[in-house]
């Protein structure tokens, strides 16, 4: 089999007829099938790595470039500065050059006016309402608990994951770590995620929402760090955290045995999902009896 044909298969360069033939061939030849699978994974990883850039709104200067040149022609000077020597029968093009700036100024003025108005109305409201209100209360319990394990986990991730000293206990001291976490948190378990391609680096105690929480760090073969955060929950959440998107981190949250778990890391959703399923399975499985010692 010509290797370039396998590449053509991955890149969709084959006729449907030839593609079917190759797929039949691959089902018989595991080694070539593995190659193709590896390239497909590369493709997915590359796209995942750079897709966020295409999703961003480009900077203003980039968005305007083509339109500006369409309207005014090449910038006479590379810097894009106004070239006063440009032959022109009227000042209209210059006025048009100023348009974006004028528009910005107008927008800024409107925004400033809106802010002043808002501040004034808030001030007035407070002056009228405040005296009638009972003394301000601390934020209610529900407010602080229903949102937030993911945020806590992210904070811990941002703090520790890339640190030169990310963990207090490394993997070699797992029994000590689990004993320490058990004592402070009332729960400790470090699932073995090697089947999901994650190797335990170690763990530490981290501030949780209401009490100390556990924070374990794993490393993927690609070097990405994935963290498992867990904190005991007193009550079931009434409201679930709505899905959010972030350019780098994927987070998966679940509950079990009265503990909130969050697994997060810069991996693709399905990969992290697989790791989370593995972790949930290990935590829930009766083999946990030996777990506290592992």
């Amino acid at each position, binding site marked *: 089999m010509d290797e370039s044909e396998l590449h053509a298969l991955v890149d969709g360069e084959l006729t449907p007829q030839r593609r079917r033939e190759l797929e039949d061939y691959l089902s018989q030849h595991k080694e070539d099938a593995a190659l193709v699978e590896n390239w497909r994974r590369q493709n997915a990883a590359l796209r995942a790595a*750079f897709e966020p850039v*295409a999703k961003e709104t480009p900077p203003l200067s980039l968005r305007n470039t083509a339109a500006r040149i369409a309207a005014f022609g090449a910038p006479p000077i590379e810097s894009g500065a106004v070239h006063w020597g440009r032959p022109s029968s009227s000042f209209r093009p210059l006025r048009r050059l100023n348009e974006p700036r004028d528009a910005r100024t107008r927008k800024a003025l409107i925004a400033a006016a809106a802010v002043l108005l808002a501040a004034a109305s808030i001030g007035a409201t407070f002056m009228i309402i405040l005296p009638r209100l009972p003394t301000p209360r601390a934020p209610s319990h529900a407010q602080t608990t229903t949102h937030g394990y993911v945020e806590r986990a992210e904070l811990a991730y941002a703090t520790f994951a890339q640190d030169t000293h990310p963990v207090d206990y490394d993997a070699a001291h797992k029994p000590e770590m689990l004993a320490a976490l058990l004592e402070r948190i009332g729960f400790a378990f470090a699932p073995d995620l090697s089947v999901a391609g994650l190797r335990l680096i170690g763990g530490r105690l981290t501030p949780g929402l209401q009490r100390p929480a556990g924070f374990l760090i794993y490393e993927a073969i690609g070097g990405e760090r994935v963290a498992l955060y867990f904190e005991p929950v007193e009550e079931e959440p009434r409201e679930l955290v709505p899905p959010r998107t972030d350019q780098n981190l994927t987070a998966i949250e679940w509950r079990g045995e009265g503990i909130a778990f969050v697994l997060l890391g810069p991996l693709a959703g399905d990969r992290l999902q697989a790791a989370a399923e593995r972790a949930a399975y290990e935590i829930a499985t009766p083999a946990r009896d030996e777990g506290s010692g592992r």
Partner: protein
Amino acid sequence: MGQREDWSLRLEAVTPALRRFARALCVSSGAAAADDLVQTAIDRAAVRARRREFRDADAAPIAAYEILISLAREKVSTGGDHRAAPREPALLRALADLPFEERAALLLVVLEGFAYDAAAAILHAPREAVVMRLMRARAALAPLDLHPSAPQDGVRRAAHLRVVK
């Protein structure tokens, strides 16, 4: 006028993709440098389009890719490229370590979805050469092991796991 607006709209529409491509092509020199190249590429493509150098509006985005690549190539050959920080993910490091032409071929096909013929036209290289570069690039990235994810047997799919982010 209509024609003019046409190419300008095409360039605008392709800007996000150009940025993605530039970011990956200049993976070791950072976002700002990549955006600078995109700016220059769009500038020059627009100037050429305005001079009616292209037969149709679709040629403008293709020219922008060509210009972007030659700018980046110049930059690499003058050594304006610095090494990726060791903390960057392995994939990005490996991408940065690829020879420039291999990286360009790989990214045109994989990231930008160009057919082999289109990529060859953009790179001003024979189709076979582009395929060879692509093959070498993939071979270089192969050891990365970008990873298994098949759930192990015995693990039932847990319906209570939610991706919240």
